[in-house]
Structures are given as C-alpha cells and as structure tokens.
C-alpha cells in the first residue's frame, strides 16, 4: 500500500472524483444527444469525466509528492457560524426580522473565544434596529418585522 504523502492534494483529489462521479451518475438520466445536436446530458457528461480524470491525477500524484498536513482545529466555530445562519433562515419568516437578527448575532458571537453575553445582546439589539431602519424603511424590502403570531406582520 502506497503512502499518502500529500494529504491536502489527496483529499482534494477524492473530492473532485466524488463530484465527477455524482455528475455522471445523476446526469446519466439526461438524454445525451449527438455532437451536432447536444442533449441536456452531453455537456455535464464531459464535465463529469474531466473532474473524474483531474481528481484521479491529483490523488495519484499525492502518493509521490510531499505536502503539508491538513490542520484541523475544533469544529465549534464552523458549526456555530453556519448554524446561526441556518437558524436565521428558519426564524426569519415566522418570528420576523427583529427576533431573527438578535438570535443570529448572539448565537454567532459565541463562535469567538472572547464571547461576552451582554455585549452580544446589546450588539444584537442595535443591529436589529439598524436592519429594520436600513432594509425595511430604507430599501423597502418585504420582510415581516415582528413575529407573525402577534397579529400583523
């Protein structure tokens, strides 16, 4: 068994192979057509094969070339930051812009090592006011400001 000497390229190669295989597999249901009249499946098939080939070269090359290790730190910031965005998506339509904003600010602030409750809350309230003023009154975006179950949106 050959040794993986370039972990970043190796992983990247596998990732491109995965995308290539997925493109070919999902795209296999689309009519290919012929070169003169390409169907919807023709171009994706070319791209899938290209990705597969490029990924394979990268993966094999990673067995011969040396490279730095992949540094993995705690997944906490990643989960908190992306989670806060998903939370915003879930809460914005029903709870309105103000609540969703405060939630996003407080939750995402927790990703920092210097998190302080009070500071995050104050910042959330200020930004919520700013968002309502700027986006709703200023730009006229169609958003519900307050929770919909409290009556008018």
């Amino acid at each position, binding site marked *: 068994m050959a040794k993986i000497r370039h972990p970043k390229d190796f992983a990247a190669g596998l990732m491109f192979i995965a995308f290539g295989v997925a493109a070919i597999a999902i795209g296999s249901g689309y009519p290919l057509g012929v070169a003169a009249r390409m169907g919807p499946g023709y171009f994706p098939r070319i*791209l899938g094969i290209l990705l597969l080939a490029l990924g394979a070269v990268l993966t094999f090359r990673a067995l011969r070339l040396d490279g730095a290790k992949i540094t993995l730190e705690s997944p906490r910031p990643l989960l908190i930051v992306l989670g806060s965005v998903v939370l915003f998506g879930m809460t914005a339509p029903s709870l309105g812009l103000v609540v969703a904003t405060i939630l996003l600010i407080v939750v995402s602030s927790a990703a920092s090592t210097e998190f302080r409750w009070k500071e995050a809350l104050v910042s959330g309230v200020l930004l919520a006011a700013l968002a309502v003023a700027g986006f709703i009154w200023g730009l006229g975006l169609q958003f519900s400001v307050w929770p919909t179950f409290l009556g008018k949106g």
Partner: protein
Amino acid sequence: MDLLANLGLGFSVALSPINLMYALIGCMLGTLIGVLPGIGPVATIAMLLPITYGLPPTPALIMLAGIYYGAQYGGSTTSILVNLPGEASSAVTCIDGYQMARKGRAGAALCIAALGSFFAGCVGTLLLAAFALPMTEVALKFGPAEYFSLMVLGMIGAVVLAHGSLLKAIAMIVLGLLFGIVGTDVNSGMARFSFGIPELTDGIGTAQIAVGVFGFAEILMSLSRKENRDILQQKLTSLMPNREEIRRAIPAVIRGTSIGSMLGILPGGGALLASFAAYGLEKKVSKRAQEFGKGAVEGVAGPESANNAAAQTSFIPLLTLGIPPNAVMALMVGAMTIHNIQPGPQVMTSNPGLFWGLIASMWLGNLMLVVLNLPLIGMWVKLLTVPYRLLYPAILLFCAIGVYSLSNSTVDVYMTALFGFMGYVFAKLECEPAPLLLGFVLGPLLEENLRRAMLLSRGDPTVFFTRPLSLVMLLLAAFLLLLIVAPQFRKTREEAFQEGEA
C-alpha cells in the same frame, strides 16, 4: 472624435444626482471594507448583489464598481498603519508602507498611495474608454466557435496567472462550470441537477455561491486565526510627502500604472496580481534595492498604483467581450444578468447611457476617493479599533439578510450555508475559490456556445481549429499551459506571489 461625445454622454449620466449618490455610497463602502481586514470586495459585492435588485441598472452597477476600486484605496490605509493587509491586493504595501509609518512617514505613505491610486485610476479609466470601441468591433465579429475558444483561453489564463496548484485550479473551474449549469436547460427545458428542489430549477444564484464560498469561508478562516492588531498610535501630523519622496514616487507610480493596466486586462489578472508584479518590478529596477523592506517609497507607490489601474482595466474584457477576467468581474456579470443585461459587445450599442455612464462614474469615483481617504483618514482608522468579535456577526447578518431578500426564500439561506461549508473545505484543502466562481459564471455561456458551434458545423469538432481567430486563441491557451510546465516560468510565478507572504 466619437470618444468625446461618448464621454460627454457618460458624464451627463454619471453626474445625475442619483448616480452620483450611488457612486459615493459604493466608494464609501469600498473604502470601509478595504480598511477592514477579513472582508474583501468579492464578499461585499456578493452580499449587496441581491439588494441592487430594487435599483435601476445604472446606479446599481456604478455602486458595485465603486466598491471594487474603492477597496483598493482603503486597503492601503490598513496596510500602512496596521501592517495587516486590509485587502489582499494591498498585502505587498505592508512591507514598505508599515516601515515608512514606523519612521514617522505614515502621512506621506498614505498620501502617495492615494495620489498614486488616483493617477492610476484616471489612466485606467481613459484606457477603458479608448479600448471600448475597437474591442467591441472585434467582438461583434465573433461567432460561437470564437466565443467558446475565447472562454477557454480566459479560463486557462486565469489559472496560469493565479497562484496555487494548477491542477487544483483547473479542477475548480470545471466544478464551477458544473455548478453553473444546474437548473433548467434552456434548449430542452429539462431541469438538471435540481434534486427536486424547486428553487434549484432556476439555477444556483451567484449571490448564494459567492457569499458562501467567499464571505462565510473568510469569516471561518479568520476565526481560526489569532490576529493581533497594533494600530500605530502616532498622530498623523502632516500628509505631505517631502521633495525627495515625491521625486522617487513619480516614476514608480508611472511604472505601476503601466504594469497594472496591462495585467488588469489579462484573464486572471486584476488588482491582486498587479500589485505583486509591480512590487517585484520596483525592486528590480531600483538602484536602492537594499532599502526595500525598510520603508522604500517606491514599494508603496508602485503596487498601490498598479492595483488601482488593474481594477479599472479589468472592466475592459467584461464590458467589451462579456468575459469576466476575475472573480469580482464574474460577480458583475451576475449583477448585469439580474437586470436582464447580457454582458458583451452589444451593451455599448443597446445601453450607451449605462456603458459610458459607468466609465465616467469611475473617474468621478476616483476623485471622491481621494477626498474620502485623505482628509477623512482619521475616521477610517477609528474603525479599525472595532474588535473582530463584534464585526463578524454583523457581516454574517448582512449576508443572511441579503441572500434571504433575494426572493424571500429560506432555501436560499440554507444553500448559502452549504456553500459556506464547501468554502471552508476548499480553504482547508488549499483549493482557490476564485476559479470556481469564474467557471460558475461562464458555465451556461460555454455550453451554449459549444452547442451552437457544433450545430453550425454539423458535429464537426475541427471547427474550433479551422476558424483562424478561434485557432489563435486555442493556441494561446495551449502556449500558456506549456509555459507553466516550463520550470523557469514556474519559478518566477511562485516568486511573484511569495513577496507578500514573506
């Protein structure tokens, strides 16, 4: 001369109150994000893309353009005063700019950077205006085969001139092309790669992919880095450079402007490459090479002029050929399509007010930026005292609101989070995201032109080699690829980008 009449039209458009206001907003925002490290023009323009939906196209594009070149001005402030690149394209300015500041010449460095940028911006804008007509005429002769080859050349050029692994960059382009064709196929009406999600039948939005891969990933990477900002706590007494500094800066500004203007036009070029190349050039031609790294004026004047010149000239391929040379221009394509404008040679004829108004606004914007950056410098420096822990949640919020407002769809927000995760993985594996965005924007165009070219040639693929213009472009692309395999060139390419990291 037509040019004068056209510029006259441009200025009449750009000087209207609403356009002036949006140019000012763009320049302010650009300076703001330029000053702030950890958020770049790509993420900002992506974030504001949805918001421009409600604006008429001309002020929208004027504002977005202002953000790009405004960021080049703002970035230098942070580089000089904090020794931290406010913008990637100002990274080399740190080397000598910060040293100048430590010697008490911060004011002079800021002044030279701003005035050099202004000179470069004016030249770049003039070049853009001058090149627009002839380039458009060439572009109008292009058929689908030529367009296909031009895009191939553009993409190859973009990876050759960018930094990082060539193989990974090409793979990222192909992946971008694949993301680009998600959605309903225009020819057959078939939904491709939409996974039964109705939102995906309209394709992936430029804003979602750019905000996720650039905006969110930048925040995530910044959070995992510990950064300490030592803002220079000295009073900026005088902004005036002395006679010796002016004498040394002028030729550097001219050299920087020339190299920046050229590199801006090239695919894959743009502000970042220009500033690195200009620094290298200054170091080479200077008789005082030993002063570089210890506060050489040329090391500030050259790169800062170059990045600004390139920011202007990179609009040339976008506005005349419809081919974006870099990631920011790819977003401009997104902005134009939001407003149902197909970028390309026809913009000038069908939308002359927009075309020349945009160009004229760039000159006005550069003028505003000098005013914004020199007397108001104290205000921008104050901004740097805002800690990152307060800043990033706010950036995140504006991203989320921007994406959500696109079509009041929560799916868009989730998609952006997904692309944020992908962006994080790409960063971890050292896969540059800029080629992905370029491929993403070009995907549908490339497929369409490939189909048309093959239809016209009745399935004969040699059409790309028998049409002379197309052949020239493919040969150029092959030549570029060969160049990079050549060890000598590879070495210079690596060196060019290492200056700033050292």
